[in-house]
């Protein structure tokens, strides 16, 4: 038992579960505080999400919608965790995601490109934006968090301006992909059949999962990954060992940006969502990526599961009793979870202390 508890992966898993439970508990308390009557039912609905539908066929269709939004979230959390492993907090992932959205939607609607060129264009645009942050960090010593936030707003306003050229005349939303350019939509490759004909489920699913595995491979099995992590752990030591520190910083943010851009393409090219050209806040996908990255114990494979969970409760928010509550309660829960993730180090230390203590006791008895 103690041996199992000492395992780092097990500890990370337990810490995440603890964060989730506490986050849900606090969400429940907030609901109780607002109105005690429907609180229990509403928090259950958040947890159940698509299970609140009674027929299995609708359940599986709704599951498909959650899946469609989970894939971009996986990419965003990969983006955050990849940079974090190198000691960079890429909060600019939200803006890189916006840049990616703008690129793939504009290429699809204005230039009529196919799905693959659109996707690559999104990836490249977002990577370039990441490079800006990286360049500023490496050569001008600008904190990447602040430059990231500034770029988030700059890209939001730029995207609103550019995409206004391809929006519907009567609404602030961009044109429908399936009407204007069906060729730019991601192929479903038969996956929609598994989800009761939900065409929002596309090859985005395998792409996201394969990317997670590739990122895991790069970080833990290659020389590049080792160098990047070394730079993150101690940049002076890495420099001393002859690693190109500035190049590594820029490269990290380029990869991180590319991941966020791919995420955007995986959402907007399913046609599930359209861009609203008057939106006044940066889409929350990039920020939710932070929650998913930390909840997943900063492990690429963990990110797959944590992203699904975060998206699951975010979607579940729409099933609360709107007579008293609002769907943003899920945002409260996920931000509380991020906050609690700050304590993970402390939780792990306490676990290890307890284990050592009980081992000492056992040793003393013998």
């Amino acid at each position, binding site marked *: 038992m103690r041996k199992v508890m000492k395992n780092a992966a097990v500890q990370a898993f337990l810490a995440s579960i603890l964060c989730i439970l506490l986050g849900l508990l606090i969400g429940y308390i907030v609901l109780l505080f607002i109105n005690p009557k429907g609180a229990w039912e509403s928090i259950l609905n958040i947890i159940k999400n698509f299970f609140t539908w009674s027929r299995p066929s609708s359940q599986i269709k709704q599951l498909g919608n959650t899946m469609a939004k989970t894939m971009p979230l996986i990419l965003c959390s990969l983006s955050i965790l990849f940079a974090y492993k190198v000691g960079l907090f890429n*909060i600019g992932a939200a803006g890189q995601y916006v840049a990616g959205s703008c690129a793939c939607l504009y290429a699809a609607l204005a230039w009529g490109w196919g799905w693959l060129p659109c996707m690559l264009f999104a990836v490249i645009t977002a990577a370039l934006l990441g490079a800006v942050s990286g360049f500023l960090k490496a050569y001008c010593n600008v904190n990447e968090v602040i430059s990231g936030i500034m770029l988030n707003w700059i890209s939001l306003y730029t995207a609103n301006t550019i995409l206004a050229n391809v929006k519907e005349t009567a609404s602030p939303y961009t044109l429908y992909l399936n009407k204007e350019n069906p060729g730019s939509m991601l192929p479903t490759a038969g996956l929609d059949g598994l989800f009761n004909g939900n065409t929002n489920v596309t090859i985005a699913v395998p792409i996201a999962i394969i990317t997670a595995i590739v990122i895991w491979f790069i970080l833990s099995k290659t020389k590049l990954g080792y160098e990047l992590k070394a730079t993150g752990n101690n940049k002076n030591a890495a420099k001393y060992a002859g690693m190109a520190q500035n190049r590594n910083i820029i490269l990290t943010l380029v990869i991180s940006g590319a991941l966020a851009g791919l995420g955007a393409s995986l959402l907007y090219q399913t046609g599930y969502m359209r861009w609203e050209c008057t939106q006044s806040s940066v889409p929350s996908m990039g920020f939710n990526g932070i929650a998913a990255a930390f909840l997943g114990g900063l492990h690429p494979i963990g990110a797959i599961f944590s992203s699904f969970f975060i998206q699951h409760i975010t979607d579940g928010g729409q099933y609360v009793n709107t007579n008293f509550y609002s769907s*943003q*309660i899920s945002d409260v829960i996920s931000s509380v979870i991020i906050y609690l993730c*700050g304590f993970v180090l402390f939780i792990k230390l306490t676990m290890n202390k307890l284990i050592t203590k009980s081992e000492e006791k056992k040793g003393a008895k013998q």
Partner: protein
Amino acid sequence: MLLLIQYTLIFASVLLLVALGGCISEHSGVINLGLEGIMVIGALGGALVMRSLGTTSAFVMVLVAMLAAILAGMLYSCLLGIAAIHFKADQTLVGTAMNLLATAAATVLVKAMNTATNPDNHSSEIEYVTARKMFIVNINGFEFNWFMLVAIIAVVLVYFLLYKNRLGLRLMACGEHPQAAASVGISVYKMRWTGVLISGALGGLGGLCYILAGVSIWKFENGVAGFGFLALAVMIFGQWKPTRIAVAALIFGLFRALSNTYTGFPFLVSMNLPGNVYNMMPYIVCLIVLAFTSKASRAPKAEGIPYDKGTR
């Protein structure tokens, strides 16, 4: 022109208050990235008071609303204090979580309150038309806001606190080398808490000032549009020094004010740029300025590093 000066001064006041908050917190050794969230909560506290007070004298209204914002900001900053000072949490992560939480929590609370009074009202807006008028003194078309005075007082106070006062010097010692400070009997925990709480108070005040700047109805879903981070940029540009921060705040305030008033300048209108360009302006200027000023950074040496008694 008068309008531009008015908006410049009011936005500069916001940035100044919040940047001074960030400055004190960083001098004590804690990076306060949660300022954005603290602003939202401070604004919420102030807005709720403004709505519930109803008809009172202008003096009481201004005083009570400001106190509420200060109190709300300080309470919220405790989240940062607990995590960063006692649990050695990653300050960037905690600050980010606080920003997300503030907007979400404020939205949920305001919506719940609106729905409770009127079941059909699902908006996250609070209105304060009469209360806003009490903050403003009209001098020949120039709207003087009491917050402009508060901001000037804050600069003076922070200057004296940091450079002419025992507390301030001790506080700064904890941001430069906490172990050395501890070795001469200064409680690092106490100093860092002081820094965080003062930044909470100033951040909350700045938040209230922000929602009073141009409008008399606030939608809490929108947060404060990156102003907390702009303030941090002002702080870096000001090299962590109160007087320089004041100058930096004026420059940034001017660019922010342009987006509200550019339609009043014929030569700007004749350039025929989309309005979004002016919306982007403060952020672009911020990036450029940071690119040129961050190299020779005078940041406190120990900022962002959790205090560990055992290290040297």
